[in-house]
């Protein structure tokens, strides 16, 4: 089974996205399940993980309602303020909602890059462990050491690094990204999303430009710790859904069937506990 482990859906008029402004002309419109459905069907994808895009619980509720009436959305990665005094209670409540599989604080947008390591968030993170929620890490490359530290401190917290840690992509992979990827791969609680790379790459990038990054991920993590995601509709700023699927096919072409199946969905099913 193929799973798109990372996409979004939004309506800008809901008004809580912050980062989503009219200047982002391609993205500043409604994206609904009806638009995505034919794209995933054409790619042979049966299930998806819907990921938050706004730092509010209202958006998480909105996403859970969509997931509830959309049979191919297998899980939602939502949001709550992990530093709130009542975070453990909020996490426990969210974990009870059908379809909620993880949480994603929007670390890349926070003023303090190390916010997640502060004592304020520890009770909320413990609650995530207790209730079996996955931590999706949305960061910029410069924050990779923070996630390494988080993964080492909390070996039971299942951490998925979104978009391969958003490497700065002009030419070959940079040493600090590569080192951090290896350090994260040494932590058995970390998995990594093969997603978002076309958005970081030079316009018009093909598989050949992504290959050094993919190879580094594969060598460090191996296929059973890599999850494929589209990052649609953010993807559409760089390429179409079928174009990213085709590039991924080229990247994984040399792997055996088991490894390809893991990247295309097996890992996601395991990490997000999706019944096949």
């Amino acid at each position, binding site marked *: 089974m193929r799973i798109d482990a990372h996409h979004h859906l939004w309506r800008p008029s809901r008004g809580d996205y912050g980062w989503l402004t009219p200047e982002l002309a391609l993205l500043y419109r409604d994206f609904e399940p009806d638009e995505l459905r034919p794209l995933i069907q054409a790619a042979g994808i049966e299930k998806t993980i819907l990921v938050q895009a706004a730092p509010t619980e209202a958006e998480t509720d909105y996403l859970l309602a969509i997931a509830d009436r959309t049979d191919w959305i297998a899980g939602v990665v939502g949001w709550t303020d992990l530093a709130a005094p009542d975070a453990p209670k909020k996490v426990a409540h969210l974990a009870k909602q059908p379809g909620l599989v993880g949480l994603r604080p929007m670390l890349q947008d926070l003023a303090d890059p190390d916010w997640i390591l502060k004592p304020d968030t*520890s009770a909320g993170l*413990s609650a995530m*462990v207790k209730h079996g929620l996955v931590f999706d890490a949305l960061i910029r490359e410069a924050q990779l050491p923070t996630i390494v530290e988080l993964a080492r401190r909390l*070996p*039971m917290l299942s951490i998925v690094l979104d978009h391969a840690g958003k490497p700065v992509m002009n030419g070959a992979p940079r040493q600090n990204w590569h080192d951090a990827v290896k350090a994260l791969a040494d932590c*058995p609680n970390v998995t990594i999303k093969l997603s978002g790379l076309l958005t970081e790459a030079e316009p018009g990038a093909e598989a050949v430009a992504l290959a050094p990054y993919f190879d580094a991920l594969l060598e460090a993590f191996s296929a059973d710790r890599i999850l494929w995601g589209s990052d649609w509709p953010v993807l559409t700023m760089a390429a179409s859904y079928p174009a990213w699927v085709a590039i991924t096919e080229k990247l994984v072409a040399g792997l055996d069937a088991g490894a390809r199946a893991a990247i295309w969905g097996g890992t996601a099913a395991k990490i997000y*506990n999706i019944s096949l």
Partner: protein
Amino acid sequence: MRTRLVQRAGLKVSEIGFGAAMLGNLYHPMSDGEAHDALTAALDAGMTYIDTAPRYGHGLSERRVGDVVRARADVILSSKVGRLFRANPKLKGDGERNGFRSPLPFESAYDYSYGGIMRSYEDSLQRLGLARIDILYVHDVGRLTHGHDHARTFAELTGGGFRALEELRAAGAIAGFGLGVNEWEICMEVMDHAALDMVLLAGRYTLLEQGALAHFLPACVERGISVVIGGAYNSGILATGTRGGEPPLYDYAPAPPQVIEHVRRLEAICDAFAVPLAAAALQFPLAHPAIASVIPGLGSVARVNDTMTLYDTAIPQAFWVRLRETALVPPDAPLPGEA
């Protein structure tokens, strides 16, 4: 059994102590004879630090503990304050209440005020039938227990409860006081309001999770606060492992898949070194310099004997190093056997 100094209270406690919750009929009734035998076996084995609480069986654990230790000179005893127990004639039988199958017809109400703490202490002496308690822990304070009522209960404690404990300590009635809690975050908050001698922390620094390592334990070392670790098996999963018939428990509930997966990784390394998982779980917290004692909950002679075997199990240094190398414990977590 080795002992460790509780610096600020001037006491020595056994490295493995006796958690007496089960003596309050936790989940299952036990006879007075079984309780007596279990505690006597523990004391004879050198587990001379005993922790009880009014909550454990609505007074039953304190009664049983007191009856055994009254004749012993070598015991260090802690109990807890923060709840007052009142008789209720309508309470009959030993149906489970708050987890305990105790027939004692008492029900509790939180009271962290000056008067409440003093009365809780006096009530404990009466139930124990003892003239002295060495250590008092403020029980279950914090957001985890009190939620939206946290601000009020915390204000009660800082507005009078701590003064009661400080007076008892100044008068020499107790050797020290602290908190007995499931979260370390509240302890950090309290350190600014009271000079804690000890903290009894359940479940938050174990072989399975080390959330207390980054912020809390260094603060304790800095201030000379001694930490006692309860729940070293995290409600059972580190004692039973993942291979038994029953779903393993973590933090009082069935363990989620990620936790089970993590324990399986620990079990794989235990297998490679022929180390019992429970032995590693019992010994791991003691490597940290802030920690004075680990107190598993014990309810039978057999469990006492098992615990002593686990405590005495020789664990190769290479086992601990492997845990660190495979990132199953944080790189800065002290390991047994390291200087």
